[in-house]
């Protein structure tokens, strides 16, 4: 994996698959994200953006969950070339 492949969730575009490496949030939000399947190692797909650009819906653990930029920008991952 080259460094160029590392990005934050809000930077990814529709249809991309990202393997999560870091979740830089604390407290209740971190717990909630973990419960929803945003855990390091999980593969997340960018499904769609809201008509107004934000929030962004992600496919995670066979469900679709929307996150605002405030949160998605604090989740980092590695861009995968294809679905894992």
């Amino acid at each position: 994996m080259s460094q160029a492949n590392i990005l934050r969730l809000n930077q990814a575009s529709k249809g991309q698959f990202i393997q999560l490496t870091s979740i830089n949030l604390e407290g209740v939000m971190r717990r909630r994200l973990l419960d929803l399947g945003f855990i390091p190692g999980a593969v997340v797909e960018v499904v769609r953006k809201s008509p107004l650009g934000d929030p962004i819906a992600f496919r995670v653990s066979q469900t679709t969950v929307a996150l605002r930029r405030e949160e998605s920008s604090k989740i980092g991952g590695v861009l995968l070339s294809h679905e894992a």
Partner: protein
Amino acid sequence: MKREYVIALAGNPNTGKSTLFNALTGLKQHTGNWAGKTVTIAEGTYVHKKNTYRLIDLPGTYSLFSNSTDEEVARNYIVFEQPAVTLVVVDATSLERNLNLALQIIEMTPNVIICINLMDEAEKRGITINENVLTKKLGVPVVKITARSKKGFALLFDTIDRLVSNVIQGTPNVVRYQPEIEEKIAKLEPFVRTVVNDTISARWIALRLLDGDESLLQELMKRWNRGEEEILCPQTEHMVHI
């Protein structure tokens, strides 16, 4: 001999939990389709083989680590009210995330039935689930149903009946964590046993305390304030010194 049993319904939001609740109890509750829809706890009853079953529809939650009021309500009910059966409703089309909650619940109580709902949707999407494998691996009964068409209800009723009458018993295969965590649990467990009565899994409480679950601590203290202190008195002196 007529008896009454309490059954709690737990599950993620959008798993058709309310649909199942309605199908079992009749015209008593409205079904919703959004996160955290069932906020207040609804109740209903059904009768099977002369036994009355009182159903408690717990709030839909993603986990039971008490991140919200809903989770606290659901957790407190399962742990402290100790229903005869906790029916964990899971969505057949997103089993992975749903089983996460089921795994948390079997840590809390052995009296669990996993109810895989929305089998019709799963079949439409070409998803096949082997419930026997799950039953074996989880150590609690797993039943496949479709709540909206009442498919699989006969087996569900039967399984509930056999569980409450002790014909079968749940022997949950709880998750084993990393050795370091297991070590800590093992260290704490004996202390927990001296403080909390044995109706609640000591392993689970040890794990929750390790995780820093303050709301559980508050809840335990509150319940002990209500005249259950005699259970604790003998150990008091000994415990102060740990």
